[in-house]
């Protein structure tokens, strides 16, 4: 009972980490940069969805679609404002700039949305449950892993099979060669950041009904998702999703078996041990430096 319920919890949370980590993966895959404000983008998705749906009373499909679209736009803005200016000049300051823009976003939300955490009203996704072997599972808890794995599969297929996906990967391998081949490098990178924002938005909207919505809801998620991205090997879509599941299940199992006092200590210690043994992550390949 303890183990199986921990599994359900872990798979749900783990898929969430995986979804966010996929956002790190897509931008890293095409540009070797990431948006460290991924956690705040996730929060933005949840806050916008709540505002459109509950505060303004718009239909739920419109609220979700618009929130996701705006998250994608936000991802593109982050690239334009906090990444490109630094990368162009060969600086690594985008590391700090993306963290900073995330903090700015959190405080703007704090100012406009308010300090009072809010809750999504119950929907069919949270009220209806199915029981498997005495375990109650909410529909949403099933939907989150399906979304996570589905998106990972889609990304994998896109990068490996489609022409455009291959073009994206070409960009990171050799930017100038890609440009010579007629690939619009800037547009590809903006697209990747928009996609990463969209993924964070999906994660935010999926977790919102399970959680409370506030300006700080994404912070810890963002940190854990980055740990997951590194653990999985940031250049493998499958890797980060599977690492997300492993991280989530480990968290829930440790809480269930050892007690919650040990959860953070043991999970993060395990991440460090795993990376010490496999420096490129569980599923990552080391980059070949060609001279």
């Amino acid at each position: 009972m303890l183990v199986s319920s921990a599994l359900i919890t872990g798979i749900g949370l783990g898929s969430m980490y995986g979804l966010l980590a996929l956002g790190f993966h897509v931008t890293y895959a095409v540009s070797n940069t990431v948006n460290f404000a991924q956690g705040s983008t996730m929060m933005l998705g949840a806050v916008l969805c709540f505002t459109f749906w509950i505060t303004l009373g718009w239909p739920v499909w419109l609220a979700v679609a618009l929130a996701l679209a705006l998250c994608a736009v936000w991802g593109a803005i982050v690239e334009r404002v906090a990444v490109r200016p630094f990368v162009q000049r060969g600086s690594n300051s985008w590391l700090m700039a993306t963290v900073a823009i995330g903090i700015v976003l959190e405080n703007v939300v704090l100012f406009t949305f308010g300090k009072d955490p809010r809750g999504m009203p119950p929907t069919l996704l949270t009220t209806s449950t199915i029981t498997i072997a005495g375990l109650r599972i909410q529909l949403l808890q099933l939907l989150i892993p399906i979304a996570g794995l589905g998106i990972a599969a889609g990304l994998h297929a896109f990068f490996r099979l489609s022409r455009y996906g291959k073009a994206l990967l070409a960009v990171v391998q050799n930017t100038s060669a890609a440009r010579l081949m007629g690939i619009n490098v800037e547009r590809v990178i903006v697209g990747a950041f928009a996609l990463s924002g969209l993924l964070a938005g999906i994660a935010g909207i999926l977790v919102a009904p399970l959680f409370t919505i506030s300006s700080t809801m994404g912070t810890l998620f963002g940190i854990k998702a980055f740990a997951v991205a590194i653990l999985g090997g940031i250049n493998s879509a499958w890797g980060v999703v599977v690492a997300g599941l492993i991280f989530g299940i480990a968290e829930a199992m440790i809480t269930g078996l050892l007690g919650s006092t040990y959860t953070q200590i043991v999970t993060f210690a395990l991440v460090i041990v795993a990376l010490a043994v496999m420096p490129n992550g569980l599923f990552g390949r080391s980059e070949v430096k060609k001279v």
Partner: protein
Amino acid sequence: MFRQRLASLNLSSVRTLSLSLVACAFFATQNAFAADPIKIGHIAALSGASAQSGEAITRGLALAIDEINAKGGILGGRKLELVQRDDESNPPKGLIAARELIFKEKVAAIFGGIDTPVGLAIVPLANKEKVPFMAVWAAGTGITRNGAKPNYVFRVSAVDVLVDVKLLQYASKKFGSKKPGLMLINNPWGESNEKGLVAADKDNAAVEIVGIEKFENADVDMVPQLTRLKEKGADSIILVVNTPPGAQMMKSRERMGWKAPVISHWGISGGRFPELAGATHGDAHFVQTYSFFGKLNPTGERVLAAMKKKYPQVKGPEDIFAPVGTANAYDAMHLVAQAMEQAGSTEGDKVRAALEDLKQPYQGLIKTYNRPFSADNHDALGPDDYIMVRYEGEKIVPTE
């Protein structure tokens, strides 16, 4: 001719002026003598996530001060005047405000707010400067039990160690629970209650704590912790946490379909608990010191009527947010005023001595206070004064 008139006019106006000046000076000294207002300080969270608590305390103080001033004030006609400062739930800010109120505003007493850490920061200053400090919300045990002799810190509010006694008693009496399990926030407040609950468990033969679980503010899913408690045979959940994570706990409990009753400290009563916790919000019973619902004593009737008049948005008890803040502050203000009257002075040491030995009983909102404080006990309320309540929608209704 014209010139002469001007001169005479001047003369007469100078005379009037000097007369009125003398009169002014005379009345001014009279004023300072009899009706110099007594400044009462209040340091609380007036902005931020806990702003409602600060506003509730402000209302309680203002209602009591209005009553006292309407009767002509104290100490032969001196009116009370409230001086407020926002601590933003930040201990250093609270301490700076306390310094300012004591040294610049020269307040006769200070009332505190919801945050135990802020209260603990002010305690040493109050004791050093001999200014009575009245806690009306923060429940941290160490605020009043601070080891100082003499001790200038008093409280009309719940105290963690006594709340812990009450929570276990209630679990066994109301729900017949024999094996409560603890769900505590992983911070100093949770820790202090863990100590309190374990100590209370030793003195209570009816219950035996079977498990202690902790969680973080940002935890989404607490099913693993709850499953551990359930596997250990817990038949009730004792909860110590503020609203948002408390709501997460309720959602996790609902998700696993566990029906064990939840008995909670009052942290969950600030904020939108019914909205955040969802369908099962009513399953959590929690501690309060006062409720404006049900049959009220004469003081309750009077205060409710005064509130409706002073704050038009209050139509009935359901519109009173954070009622404990208002009730505690109202009673505490009256006790302090009574002590000043008895001491015949606003001098800190005399007021402290009077508070420790109040001669007249006082019929307050929460109860009739008969010698509420003594030299050893600076907490006016004990487990018998706590009431248990639960949410029904947005309403807080008594369960005892």
